[in-house]
């Protein structure tokens, strides 16, 4: 301990105020633990400040601008003027509102909030380094710590983020004006979502991707729908290309890519967004002071109760590994707090749903047919194309489908793949079905509101039973 250190103590020290951390802090407070939440940047973490919420705000806003121009069939003729500054201000307002909310919810639950960076001094003590300075630190003794330090975008060598020409996703969410053109390196969900936003706002977007399709973790029948739509919007795709270098070119830049055979291609653009994935943040923590192990990807190794290899230290959210999703962080944060409080909690959920907010959206949960087979089931599937859905047509949407996968023998629902408008919402019903151990019959017998997209879920389920009515 440095002379002049102030030492305080707490039952639970939560490091990082993102979805994993603030939920853990609130839950711990509810369970009457004395909890301290330390955040070095902004409450709400990536999710609220530069991730889920801002990106979804920009997606909705750009949809409004874009859809208005696509409604001539409906007798609407429009040419909206977009003030990106105004859009970003609106987004920032709602972000502020939400992060304030997180702060006050945490405080109301009894959490003690500290601004600064926490790093471990020993397995039972952490130092709080006030932002910016290395001095005047404070020490906190803890019984348990929950690490929720999240993740950051991976940098491609040579493409260090400067926020001017080479952008990370957070920069792309706060531009002053819509660039004329943009190269997006990486066709994963973040790249695809932001590419769509800018293309819809009138920017000329080119995606370069190393693999041979966008959103490679999803099956081609799903990604085909999104890929085609993106191309219709005017996004240019180049697959099998690795970004190798860039150079300034006037106000813009030239990005050079290389294919497998070493052939170079050059792309001119005003900006370059690099979105090739995210890596866990552990370098802020001085992990050397504790016995917390990380894996090959740098993620903290945890067990089914979010406990690390150090008995008293837990890790949740992105820093604890894939899937790096906010709702997974929520769940882990809750479990960590409950385990610390002595409750018999565990990560025994059956499935983590996932959504991609592209046009149209993708929503998936549980097993695909192939995965179900691999797991030893004798799967059956039911599929409802949205072109047969009255509600989809009334939304002027013809593409996409809902597919459910179930065990042929028992009828237990095992998974679902949805691509179409509001797929992110539709997946919830089937996630609940999976968690409840519901069968096809259970959902088939449930009345769904007409006319809604949820009827497509109903029909897909009926389809799996060979009892579709509307298709």
């Amino acid at each position, binding site marked *: 301990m440095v002379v002049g250190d102030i030492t305080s103590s707490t039952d639970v020290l939560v490091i990082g105020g993102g979805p994993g951390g603030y939920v853990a802090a609130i839950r711990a407070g509810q369970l009457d633990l004395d909890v301290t939440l330390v955040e070095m940047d902004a409450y709400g973490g990536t999710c609220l400040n530069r991730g889920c919420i801002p990106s979804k705000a920009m997606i909705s806003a750009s949809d409004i601008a874009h859809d208005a121009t696509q409604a001539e069939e409906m007798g609407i003729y429009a040419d909206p003027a977009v003030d990106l500054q105004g859009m970003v201000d609106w987004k920032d307002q709602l972000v502020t509102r939400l992060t304030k909310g997180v702060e006050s919810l945490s405080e109301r639950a009894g959490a003690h909030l500290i601004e600064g960076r926490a790093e471990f001094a020993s397995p039972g003590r952490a130092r709080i380094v006030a932002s910016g300075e290395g001095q005047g630190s404070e020490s906190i003794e803890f019984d348990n710590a929950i690490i929720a330090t999240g993740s950051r975008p991976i940098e491609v060598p040579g493409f260090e983020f400067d926020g001017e020409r080479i952008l990370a996703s957070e920069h792309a969410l706060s531009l002053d004006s819509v660039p004329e053109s943009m190269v997006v390196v990486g066709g994963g969900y973040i790249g695809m979502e932001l590419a769509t936003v800018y293309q819809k706002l009138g920017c000329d977007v080119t995606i370069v991707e190393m693999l041979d399709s966008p959103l490679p973790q999803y099956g081609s029948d799903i990604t085909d729908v999104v890929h085609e739509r993106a191309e219709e919007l005017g996004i240019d795709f180049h697959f099998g290309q690795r970004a190798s270098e860039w150079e300034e070119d006037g106000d813009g830049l030239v990005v050079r890519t290389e294919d497998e055979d070493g052939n170079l291609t050059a792309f001119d653009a005003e900006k370059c967004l690099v979105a090739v994935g995210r890596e866990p943040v552990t370098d802020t923590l001085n992990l050397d002071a504790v016995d917390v192990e990380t894996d090959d990807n740098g993620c903290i190794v945890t067990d089914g109760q979010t406990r690390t290899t150090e008995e008293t230290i837990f890790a949740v959210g992105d820093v604890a590994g894939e899937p790096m999703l906010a709702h997974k962080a929520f769940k882990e944060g809750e479990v960590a707090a409950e385990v610390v409080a002595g409750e018999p909690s565990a990560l*025994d*959920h059956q499935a983590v749903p996932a959504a991609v907010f592209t046009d149209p959206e993708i929503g998936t949960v549980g097993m695909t047919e192939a995965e179900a087979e691999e797991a030893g089931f004798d799967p059956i599937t039911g599929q409802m194309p949205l072109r047969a859905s009255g509600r989809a047509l009334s939304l002027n949407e013809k593409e996409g489908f809902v597919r459910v996968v179930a065990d042929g023998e028992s009828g237990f629902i095992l998974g679902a793949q949805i691509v179409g408008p509001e797929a992110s919402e539709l997946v919830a019903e089937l996630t609940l079905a999976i968690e409840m151990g519901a069968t096809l019959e259970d959902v088939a017998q449930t009345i769904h509101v007409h006319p809604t997209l949820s009827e497509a879920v109903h029909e897909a389920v009926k389809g799996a039973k060979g009892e579709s009515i509307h298709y």
Partner: protein
Amino acid sequence: MAFEFELPDVGEGIAEGEIVAWHVSPGDTVEEDQVMADVETDKAVVDLPAPVTGTLLDLHAEEGEMVPVGDVVATIDVDGDGEVTEETPSEDTATEEVAATETAADSEPDQDALEASTGDGRVFAPPNVRRLAREEGVDITTVEGTGPSGRITESDVRAAANGEEQTTTSAVTPRDDGDTATQSTSETTTATTQTTVETADRDQTLATPATRKIAEEEGIDLDTVPTDKTRDGKAFVEEEDIRAFLEAEEASAETSAGADTATTSAGVETATPTPQEVTTEPYRGVRRTIGQQMEESKYTAPHVTHHDTADVSELVETRDELKARAEAEGITMTYMPFVIKAIVAALKEYPMLNSELDEEAEEIQYKHYYNIGIAVATDAGLMVPVVKDADDKGMLQLSSEVNELASKARNREVSPDELQGSTFSITNFGAFGGEYATPIINYPETAILGLGEIKQRPVVEDGEVVAKHTLPLSLTIDHRVIDGAEAAQFCNTVMEYLENPTLLLLE
């Protein structure tokens, strides 16, 4: 051809049984219907007869093991070729397959933990049931579901929690498997072989509570008392055996004067654990059934107990008169038939106390028959044999039936059938002394009457304290169905009959 012998449903709709003892061992020849084992179900100990004649190849359950109905307990070679028949259908359902894979809750620091939960480790149980499983320390992957399509329900998990040897890693306190106790017993046995006293070394001994009490008073471990008698294939010790054992010990102590005192007082040593020691005993069989029933009753029905005292001077006289006559017919006349008669008469007046609440149907069912359960303390715990249609039976018949049921229960000869169907129960706690108690209802019945000890107590009569025979009564009711006033009125009626036994003639 070998026959795979699956544990049959040895009771009525039982799910599992404990193999108390095997009477055969591999290599033995077994005859069809020969008793192979004693199986204790939650209701009674029953014989397990061999299904076929042949040579016993293998036993698949240990003594003391809980075996689910349908599990193979023995392999019997029927015609001497030793080939196993495909008796058990081994078609794996997908559920069974996945049940074997691990869930995320298995705590192994492993990045796969999350994948396991999203991938192969499917368990078809709603989240609240999974949570319950964790709370109960039940490994849900081993629970068999009884819900739709085999979904695991809350009650499946509760059943597993009650029935299973705890198989999970979490929240289980290490169990002392009674090692220390067994060990000290065997040590003693070795020690005693040096003397001439023959001692036994059993794990379990049956005896009546009275015998057990004597053993306790004498500081003797019943398991060490030699006996040839058996009940249900289990060693059965009676008072005379204890006396004989004590005498032998005394004699040996005299002859081997100077011998180590520790060896002579063998039994005493084994029975008394050292102060820090904890010995354990599995919670199952009849004991566990009692426990579960008590729990269900007390947690389901709000209990209220009404106490009163009947002046039974006349009853004592009447009984004494009838006792001699009954004895002539070879029947011991107790007070029980009078009490039963009085209760039946009162139940007819207050049918609410002969009812059952069907929570699911939200209905109160009135029973128009009078089956009276009589709580009997047995060696293994409390049992409640039932006197059926008590309203149709005469005093003598009631007397002999009650006596017979009680002794059957004590000797564990009572059949599951005789333990079912009561509509109202009586508990005679006074037999062990005591004035009042707060009996627990024999759920789903709605009332139980507890009897204290009949003896002379001071009673105020016309301003004078006189000694009179009185009977303390404790009536517990399910307050959901019965109100306090009704309970009091019912009790008053019972008392009226007991105080004026001639009224029973009208019944």
